[in-house]
């Protein structure tokens, strides 16, 4: 294969669709953080250090409802626990890298750049850990600048009346993530269970701790039911665990690995 362009341009092309979709969401996130009390600099700082749409929207929405700090931090910890799974599944591809590399790689990993990198590692043999880190940093750049601009300009815009509207970006993003997670009937059932449990736990506990209780209970039920179904030896025949394919076709990220 002849090299017609430098490596960073190729990597940037892989990251670009994700970078562009971060612009409106990052801007909305910056506005919300600003409304919740953050200035442009703290919005930039949280975008770089936390770099997670879910966590940042969560901070904004919990600050707006005046939640205590320990509740916010604990909620973020539980929200970000899923990265333990993402990190585990990527670890086979980043073996043999330095400790320093892993710290940088882990710090800037999120749902979306994980999805891009996982696909590249799985399909493109020439994809290296340093390329994956570069994808993370391109997306980080677009995300943090969009957040900064949103927070800076959000202060100039009269958007208080539309707060509930912009806040829906959070709900929409979580809904998107739910839909992407629905692999089989059992997952759908656990999702519904989590919803019912969340209402009950929130109303009883009168705090966001209800979210944590509902999450732990529902995911534990999912784990137990799956254990039981697979122990019975019905792993692939059980209709509850049968993989479900979404209608839209999977996007091919790039083809530059082909001859």
């Amino acid at each position, binding site marked *: 294969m002849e090299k017609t362009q430098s490596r960073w341009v190729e990597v940037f092309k892989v990251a670009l669709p994700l970078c562009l979709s971060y612009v409106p969401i990052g801007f909305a996130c910056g506005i919300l953080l600003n409304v919740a009390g953050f200035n442009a600099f703290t919005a930039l700082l949280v975008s770089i250090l936390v770099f997670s749409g879910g966590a940042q929207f969560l901070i904004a929405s919990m600050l707006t409802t005046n939640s205590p700090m320990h509740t916010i931090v604990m909620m973020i910890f539980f929200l970000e*626990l899923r990265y333990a799974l993402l990190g*585990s599944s990527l*670890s086979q591809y980043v073996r043999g890298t330095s400790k320093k590399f892993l710290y940088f790689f882990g710090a800037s990993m999120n749902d979306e750049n994980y999805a891009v990198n996982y696909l590249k590692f799985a399909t493109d043999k020439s994809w290296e850990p340093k390329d994956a880190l570069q994808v993370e940093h391109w997306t980080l750049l677009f995300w943090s600048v969009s957040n900064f601009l949103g927070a800076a300009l959000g202060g100039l815009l009269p958007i208080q009346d539309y707060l509930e509207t912009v806040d829906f970006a959070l709900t929409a993003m979580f809904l998107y993530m739910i839909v992407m997670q629905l692999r089989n009937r059992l997952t759908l059932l656990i999702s519904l269970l989590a919803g019912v449990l969340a209402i009950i736990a929130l109303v009883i506990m009168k705090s966001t701790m209800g979210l944590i209780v509902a999450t732990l209970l529902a995911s534990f039920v999912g784990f137990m039911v799956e254990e039981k179904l697979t122990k019975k030896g019905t792993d692939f025949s059980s209709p509850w665990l049968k993989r479900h394919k979404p209608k839209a076709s999977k996007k091919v990220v790039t083809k530059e690995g082909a001859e």
Partner: protein
Amino acid sequence: MHYTAFDHYILVVLAAIAAFLPRIIPLRIFTSKEIPSWFNAWMKYVPVSLFTSLVVRDLFINTHNYTFTGFHHIGKILSALIVMVVAYRTRSMGLSVLVGLIAVALFTVGLHW
């Protein structure tokens, strides 16, 4: 509680630590060891449960006094259904969020639902 600008910095640092630990610990461990299957099996259901809880709170709970609001926020609930259809058909996060924002603006600000 009331948050000062200094509290915001502390919050950002604590949030960064809370976000960093779950990311780095498995990376450090599993680049040298095998992943236990029970861990994967349990972790698999955490995201979907948490996201559903968060959405349900946004749609059905009054976060000031934690009461169940039923179908009072019908505009938001309809927008949520639209977002799910768009997400399912397009698999695009940007498009899902954009359509969701337009729908909720139309229903709540436009029609006062």
